[in-house]
């Protein structure tokens, strides 16, 4: 029997003052925030699109996605590129804390449920 959530490595980061984690294996890259081009009429939690290694990536504003208040830019914001079945997504976070081994973390995000921006909790613009 395998317990994936026990003693697994998580990348911890901050969004709107709260800490979250993602399984390290799902994070492809941590990038500085590049030029993000807003996409009119996209779901409300889509910050826009960016270019990474020649591919157009959809960037999700994680604060909006998690319905947290926006925070003032500190210059420590980063984009987490996460691999998914259909595409690689960019997640905009306020700060990256580091990699920790955690036992059954409480606020670990499931990379796949982030797959559908605006699917459940977005009301659109």
């Amino acid at each position, binding site marked *: 029997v395998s317990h994936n959530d026990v003693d697994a490595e998580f990348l911890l980061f901050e969004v709107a003052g709260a800490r979250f984690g993602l399984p390290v294996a799902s994070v492809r890259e941590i990038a500085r925030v*590049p*030029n993000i*081009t*807003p*996409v*009119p*009429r*996209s*779901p409300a939690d*889509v910050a826009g*699109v*960016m*270019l990474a*290694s*020649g*591919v*157009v*990536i*959809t960037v999700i504003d994680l604060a909006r996605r998690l319905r947290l208040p926006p925070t003032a830019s500190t210059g420590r914001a980063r984009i987490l590129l996460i*691999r998914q079945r*259909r*595409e*690689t*997504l960019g997640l905009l976070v306020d700060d990256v804390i580091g990699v920790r081994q955690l036992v059954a973390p409480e606020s670990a995000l499931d990379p796949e449920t982030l*797959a*559908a*921006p*605006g699917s459940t909790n977005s009301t*659109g*613009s």
Partner: protein
Amino acid sequence: MSQSDADRARLDALSAEAEIDTPGPASTVAQLAVAAASALSAADSAPAQVLASRDWPRPGSVAVDGTRLDQLIDSVGGLVAVQHRIAALLEKARAGASQQELVLDVQRLQRSCERQVDAVRACALDVRRVRLLPVLDALARLTKSLAGARSNSLHVVVDEAEIELDKTIADGIVEPLALFLRHLVLRVLEPDQQATAGAAPSLVTLALRARAHAGQVAIELHVTGRDLQLATDSGQLAQLRTHARCLGGTVELSHAAAGCSVTLTVPVTLSVIGALLISIGATNMALPLSGVVEVVRYDERALQLRRGRPFIDVRGVALQLASMSEVLCLPRAGETRRYQHVVVINSGTRRLGLLIDQALGQRPLMLKPLGWSLRGVSIFAGAADLGEGRLVLVLDPTGLIDEQEQAEDAGLRATVPW
């Protein structure tokens, strides 16, 4: 400001130039085939042998012309030379060379770097081409297997003239085509309501035809011997259309006395397109020249309202207008703003005038598809790199016209779909 034919021809020539997109997450036909096959195996009528991987083409091995490889190696050599020259230039700068001298050196270096990169790109494109025939053959075999016990009444033919297309495109069409064929076969083999009971089932022919023309390849699924109302299967068609659009392609449906067909048209390469840059408020966007008829100066006094919709007269023909800032749901950037231009776009015989702030000029762009999560925003064909990581969104003329028509059908103005 009417767009001259010469300009058009020049840009057409530019868009015909071969260039490729950086490949996305690796996906081979084989992988997609497995995905498609597992989806197919879920269908009760799909026999297990459909999954046999030997049935699928293996584009992992690509035949490459030896001289092309030599050219590639030469170009890489050229790039290494550029690298050495950059190092030398850095030394020169550190040694205190004058700015004027350095600027000249950098300009020369930039030109030779561009030449080398173009050469590498051209070779890479050539190497990435795969043949379409094995893909169609595999789809034909799959279709035949799906028919199972009733395969005797289904005749599948493949008709293709030596077509090669970019691997990314070939990979992208396999799964949607396989799923659509499955749907088609199930429909084709449904018991014929009109046939007399006990009569031998009529022979149905499914032809997979492919033709290449002007940088596009049209793959036609043509059914004869059975009257199918494919138009009613909007769900399956819409899916195929979504996949096609991600690759910069289209899907068309036609009914004729001789049968009905669904035609999937995709570009042979993820290529450079000629584009018109436009501004709407503070937002810049691009339109593919292939869907632009002309740009005319907007004169507010010529605006007419017909059944509440705005029209202008362009050389004696009434043209319906759509305000781009409304279509894009952009906030109004100050009421003093004046629309200067109308871009006339077309899709087949349909036309629409887009009211914009300004047409900024033409430029070739490398079109890249948007991610899966933005597939719902059908007015965009993709995005393109303007350099230094800045992206510009590329509008889809067909999507814009479709949406305008749908909004009219629903008796609504173009508004947010969610």
